[in-house]
Structures are given as C-alpha cells and as structure tokens.
C-alpha cells in the first residue's frame, strides 16, 4: 500500500517541477497603458463582491457542512470554516498575498515585497485591476484564499482534531494555495503564461481543495463506525440555507472576478446561475431515476456542483454552454458521490472531493471545450470553437494542480501528525467533537439541568452587589 503511495509521490513530484520549466516564459504580459483612475462603479462592485465571497465561507459553507454533520459534531464542523476565515485572513495580510500576487520569482511564487501589505495601497495596481483600489483587489482575493482550505474540511469533518487542523490550515495555505494561486493568476505565473484559462478559480480553488480533501480523508482514515452506524445530516434546512448562501455569494465570486461591473461580469453572472440550476436539476433527475426519489439534499448538492464546475468557465462561455456544463456536472458529481465513493470506500465525510474535486476538474476541462472569444476577447477559443490546443493546456493545468495537491497535502499531513495527532480517538468521536474539542453543545434545550461551578459560587457572598432597584 505505502509503496504505491511513495511511487505516486515521485512521479507527481517530477511532473510538477518539470512542467513549469517547459512553460516558455514570455514576459510579454499584455497590460496596455491604462489610466490609473478609480471607477466608483467598479469599486462598488468588487467591494460588495468581496463581502459576498466572505458570506460564502461564513455562514454559507459553515451551515452547508454543519447541517450535514451529526448533532454532536456541528460546532466542530462550523469551526473549521470559522477558523479558515480567522487565520487565513491574517495570514494573507501578513505574507500570503505577497506570495501569491507579489512580484514574480521564477514563475513559481511571488516575492515577499508586499509583506504586511507593504505597497498595497489605495491606488489601483494596473497589473491586476486598473479601475479599483489595489487593496480592494487584495481583499477580494483574500476571500478566495479563505474559502479554499475551508472547503477541504468537508472531507475530514467529524474526526480531525482542532489543533491539528490549525497547523494543517496554515501550512496548506502557505505551501499549496499561495503558490498555485501565483501560477494561475500571478503576473508571470507559469500556468498563466502557458495560457491556462481559469476565470474564477476552478483550478486554484476547487481542484486543489477537492483533491487535498481526498488525500486527507484517506490519510486520516474512516470515521469510527463508518459503514455500520448511519451518519445522517442532522439538519437539512441548514444545508439548504448554506447552499443558498453559497449560490448567492458565488455571484460575487464569479461575476466579481471580472473585477468591474461590465458586460463580462453580467455574462459571468448569467453563466453561473444557469449552470447551477442545470446541475441541480441533473443531480436530482439522476438520483430520481437511480433511487426513486428526488431529494432536497440532492438539489442542494447539485447546485454546489454546478457552481463549482462553472467557476473556471463562467467568463468564457455562452449561456447555453453553461447549461450543458451544469447538466454534466450534476450527473458526474452524483455518480462520484453516490457510486464511486461507495465502491472505493474512502470516507469523504461531507463530499469535498466528490463535489469540488470532480466538479472542479470537469469545469477546468469544460473551459477548454466551450470557451469562446465571442464572450471574452481576452480569453481563447476552446475545442468546440476550433482550438484543440486549449484542451491540452487545460489538462496540463489540471494535472499539475492534482499533483501538487496530492503530494503537498500528503507531506503536510504526515509532518503535522508527527507533532500533533491528527485523528480524534474513537472515544472522542463517540462523544462527538463538539464536546471533546470545543467543550460545547450546539443545542442545549434538552440539557435541562446543570449547575454553575465553584468558580462562581466562591463569589456568592458578594452577590448583593447588583440588585433590582425598583
């Protein structure tokens, strides 16, 4: 078993260190000389979009995943998203943004020139966004850096210890997210130079989070009782609420990635919405045929699958292509989650891989098929518009992000586990992570009886200090 893994590691390491070198690094980044004037319309749009993307993680994803957890693990699941928000926001400001978007170093990583947000001011940075303040771009991108590791948590929910999660979080963001973001979006990043299309983060956000999730859930092992004890969502209304907020926030994610309020943003908005609806439909129809009932969880899951799949494509494809991408995404993710997972018997608790890994991979590929310069002249044509080469480029982007996610996550988890135990013990899982990791119950309505501890009663003599005065 472990042999297979080590061999895999070697192969993948080779691939992803060699390919960047191949990427002919023509520095001719086509930035026209733009006037550095801030547009209030664009700034308004991007700032609100940043707020929408923030909402995706908290409470969107927290609720989506929290509703899927069992009652004894709700808070622990929510805390993964909450701390991704807390910790990565600060990491990003301190050095993450600089690593991802700072001046390029060998096409692999940004330099530390922008550490602590040095040189990230109120004026536009024409390299990334000529019409909005540079710090607006920075904070918009921050929200992407936040949600990506939060997505992974769906794979190891209900069993990863909180301290281990924190360590994993910071390492993963630093060694995986930040470089990959630079490759794809950073000026002179090698995948960007290669011509890979990724409008809003299919590769950067979804493939690497989904694939890292798969690795993590295998490394951590199945939850205690998996396969014998049923593990049902404790609150589907929360899950629907979460999915709906993800959908809502995703308009900021995708349309906001146009970095301005213009025709392209509107086009991305429309593509996003249609693909989502189509994917929800196709997931539900597939399961209806397969299992006999159209479920709410299916609709919510399908919607998220569609959002994932359209993310890289939304700024390059026409509305009808978006519907097709969505239809395929829904069915594909359903099969991944409902059939493939059961076959391979890994325990991806809340289906981070099944939805983000599979949906993201399909989306990155689909971008190579359906992209058209009729929608976005700054993009490329895809296979169906006469440019088969784009598919090859997309496949390179997919393969390299799979590779880095597999190898990187595997190494990080192994390293963390040396210092901090990753997996909650069977007893901790039995009692639930809420109590064992956080010392809290999500719902206390039935804990009718409890009493305060001595720390309080020691003060009982002075209890006359505050009294009703009426």
């Amino acid at each position: 078993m472990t042999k297979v893994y080590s061999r895999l590691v070697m192969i993948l390491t080779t691939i992803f260190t060699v390919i960047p070198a191949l990427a002919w690094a023509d520095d001719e980044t086509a930035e026209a000389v733009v006037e550095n004037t801030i547009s209030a319309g664009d700034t308004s749009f991007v700032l609100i979009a940043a707020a929408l993307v923030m909402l995706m993680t908290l409470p969107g994803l927290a609720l989506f995943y929290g509703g899927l957890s069992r009652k004894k693990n709700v808070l622990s699941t929510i805390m993964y998203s909450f701390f991704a928000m807390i910790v990565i926001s600060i990491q990003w400001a301190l050095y993450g943004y600089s690593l991802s978007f700072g001046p390029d170093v060998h096409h692999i990583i940004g330099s530390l020139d922008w550490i602590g947000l040095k040189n990230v001011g109120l004026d536009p940075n024409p390299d990334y966004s000529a019409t909005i303040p540079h710090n607006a771009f920075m904070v918009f991108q921050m929200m992407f850096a936040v949600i990506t590791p939060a997505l992974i948590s769906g794979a190891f929910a209900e069993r990863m210890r909180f301290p281990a999660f924190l360590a994993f979080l910071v390492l993963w963001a630093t060694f995986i997210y930040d470089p990959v973001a630079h490759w794809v979006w950073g000026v002179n990043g090698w995948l960007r130079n290669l011509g890979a299309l990724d409008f809003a983060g299919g590769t950067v956000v979804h493939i690497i989070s989904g694939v890292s999730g798969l690795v993590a859930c295998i490394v951590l092992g199945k939850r205690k009782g998996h396969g014998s004890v049923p593990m049902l969502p404790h609150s589907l209304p929360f899950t629907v609420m979460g999915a709906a907020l993800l959908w809502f926030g995703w308009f900021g994610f995708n349309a906001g990635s146009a970095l301005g309020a213009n025709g392209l943003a509107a086009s991305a908005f429309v593509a996003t919405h249609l693909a989502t609806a189509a994917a929800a439909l196709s997931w539900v129809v597939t399961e209806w045929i397969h299992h006999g009932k159209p479920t709410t969880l299916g609709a919510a899951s399908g919607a998220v699958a569609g959002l994932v799949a359209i993310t890289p494509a939304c700024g390059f494809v026409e509305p009808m292509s978006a519907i097709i991408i969505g239809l395929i995404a829904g069915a594909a993710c359903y099969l991944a989650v409902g059939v493939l997972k059961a076959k391979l018997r890994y325990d991806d608790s809340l289906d981070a891989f099944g939805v983000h890994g599979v949906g993201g991979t399909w989306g990155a590929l689909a971008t190579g098929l359906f992209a058209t310069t009729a929608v976005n002249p700054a993009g490329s044509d895809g296979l169906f518009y006469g440019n088969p080469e784009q598919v090859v480029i997309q496949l390179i982007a997919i393969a390299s992000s799979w590779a880095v996610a597999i190898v990187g996550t595997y190494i990080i988890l192994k390293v963390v586990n040396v210092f901090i135990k990753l997996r909650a013990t069977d007893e901790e899982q039995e009692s639930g992570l809420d109590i064992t990791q956080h010392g809290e119950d999500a719902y206390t309505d039935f804990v009718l009886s409890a009493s305060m501890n001595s720390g309080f009663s020691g003060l009982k003599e002075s209890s006359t200090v505050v009294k009703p005065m009426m």
Partner: protein
Amino acid sequence: MTKIECILRPGKLEDVKEAVNKYGIHGMTVTQVIGCGLQKGRTEVYRGAEYSINLLPKIKLEMVIPDEDVAEVLKIITNVARTGEIGDGKIFTYKIDNAIRIRTGEKGDEAI
C-alpha cells in the same frame, strides 16, 4: 390503580385523547419515542447511499386510572387507535402502588 401505557401512531394521539376524555379520563402524559416491532422500517437515501431506518416515530401515552375502568378504557383505545395495518402499536398495563397529587398531597385514587 393501573397504568396504561400505549405506544401509538403519532397521528392517533388526538383521537385517542378525545375518546378517553369523553369517557371521563383527563390525566395523561405523552412522550415522543421511536420503536420497532413487526413494522419493517423504511429506507432513506442521502447522496446516493441508502439507509434503512428501522426505528420509527411513535407516541407513548401513559394514563394512570382506577382499576375498575381498565377494561373499558382498553376497549376504547384499541378501537380508536386501530387502522389494521402493521405499526398500530401496543398497550401494556401494570399495577401502580400509589399516586400522589403534588399540589394537595392527596393519595391513591383521589390523586389521579
């Protein structure tokens, strides 16, 4: 005194309650339970995995009544709660030694 403990379909509570009220019994306690018997349970599918739920929601209704009423009350409940389908539930009876009304301290049949 006898305690009558019935496990009922959730939808039948209101009917049984009305029927025994009409007979003159007003004190009762109701608990939400799940249970199984001959009834087979059902299947739920979450993201493609099937789960068979084999404990189904029921209502437990407890009444403590004087011994002389037991036979009649059992008849009433059986009639009202029956649908003839599997899952109609059970009634158990057992003797109670004593009952106390907390408010007044009354004991025995007075108290119920």
